[in-house]
């Protein structure tokens, strides 16, 4: 077993096995981040490749005292940003979504098949959630992927995105708020109407856990 620091050090000296081990350690997470960020598997794979190329090229400049994971996530976010912009340019279809905090993002067209009262259904929710993530303003998208898909802490996210803690907190809240609205619009999150005793019961049960 080798520590990550050790692997980084060896990879830096040109040790291919060490570099490959770093790829193994991070490829899944980086791929998944890119998949949620970019929305399809081909782009996600392209992004993962590009991320590790940049890691390889910039490894010399990586500070040992800083966190490799933070560093590679930062590269990954930048690669995704670049690829997305590239895609938008190629398609020449200016998306409605603007930068962070502009609430004027493109909403998905409500899907009439799902009435608002539709009960939670895993596969549907999954699909809608992915779509909803992709319609968030980019800054909210990246933060919510890092937090809720990747499970990174507020501190880590702040370091990766160069954000103050307060900004991390408020942006996560905004992103989730928007996601919830999007899911309600497509009827993929149950409305939990108080007139429904079964749902009320579930809610109470959760309350007990507080």
């Amino acid at each position, binding site marked *: 077993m080798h520590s990550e620091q050790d692997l980084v050090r060896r990879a830096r000296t040109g040790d291919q096995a060490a570099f490959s081990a770093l790829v193994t350690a991070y490829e899944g997470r980086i791929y998944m981040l890119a998949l949620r960020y970019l929305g399809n598997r081909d782009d996600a794979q392209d992004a993962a490749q590009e991320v590790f190329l940049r890691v390889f090229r910039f490894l010399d400049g990586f500070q040992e005292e800083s966190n490799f994971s933070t560093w590679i996530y930062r590269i990954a976010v930048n690669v995704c940003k670049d690829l997305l912009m590239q895609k938008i*340019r190629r398609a020449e279809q200016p998306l409605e979504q603007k930068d962070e905090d502009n609430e004027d993002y493109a909403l998905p067209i409500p899907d009439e098949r799902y009435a608002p009262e539709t009960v*939670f259904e895993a596969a549907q929710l999954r699909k809608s959630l992915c779509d909803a993530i992709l319609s968030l303003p980019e800054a909210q998208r990246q933060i919510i992927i890092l937090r809720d898909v990747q499970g990174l802490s507020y501190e880590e996210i702040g370091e990766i995105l160069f954000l103050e803690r307060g900004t991390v907190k408020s942006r996560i809240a905004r992103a989730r708020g928007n996601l919830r609205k999007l899911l309600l619009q497509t009827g993929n999150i149950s409305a939990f109407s108080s007139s429904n005793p079964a749902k009320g019961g579930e809610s109470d049960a959760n309350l007990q856990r507080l």
Partner: protein
Amino acid sequence: MRTCNDYEILIHLYLDGMLEPSESHELSAHLASCSACRKRFEQYRQMKEAMAALKDEPVPADLHDSILAYVTERADTPAERRPVKAKRFPSWTWKTAAGIAACAVIAFTAVHMMPRKGSADQNALAARAPMSDSSCAEEAKLSNTGDPYKMPTPCPEDTPEEPAENSGFNQKGYRTESFDPKNFAILTETVKSGVLRDASLVNGYLAVGEEDALPTWIDREALSSIDETPDAGYARVAADQEEEWVSALEESGFALYSLEVGGEASEPQSAASGETDGAEENVLFLFQWEKTE
């Protein structure tokens, strides 16, 4: 007294395991009495669960191999790990620059001094990389008084040239002085401090991404016109670190072209709408550098 909106923030913190026990009790009490927030709480909880489940998806079987192949193909040997743009600045250029060091030299100087037929285009690029139309080149020529084929005349006062106003780009003309290699360390520290993103020192050069790592909103065709420009580099830094970065760069005497502000929102019309949290905006610089020794 907290409002339901305040409690919504607490819900998020609770779901992230970041709530103090006292606040948890407070939230719990509120949820017991407010059905709207209870509903919201349950929705957020359900959503967060579903989000976490999104990472449980198989990765492509060839992912690992494809990554290694991609890397190997593009960076076979450590010796080639240097940025394509990190070509050495011809020494005569810096010598000339040193000759007029007593005077503040505007950022465009180095480009002006290059006896290349593409000078005007290069100026245009320096002025605003994302645009490459000819009117842009014209404007850049006009906004700089010097003849591109002539040595710049030393300016009598410390008067940096007025940055050219143009469509929404936050463009600034930073002045710079002659390059002093011993100040390279300052820049090195700037890189190490993490102010520069995606940057590193490679073989004594400041490397800020490879050509294929260029921010995509930069007009690549325009950029290719400076391929012959010695040692043009670019950097993207967080907006709130701009000052720090600029002063470090200026102290080290780098020829610095400020291109524009805005990162991914850098299209001309959106560059101005900066009413965000502020920290994530990027600033792009084009600059030139010299090797350490």
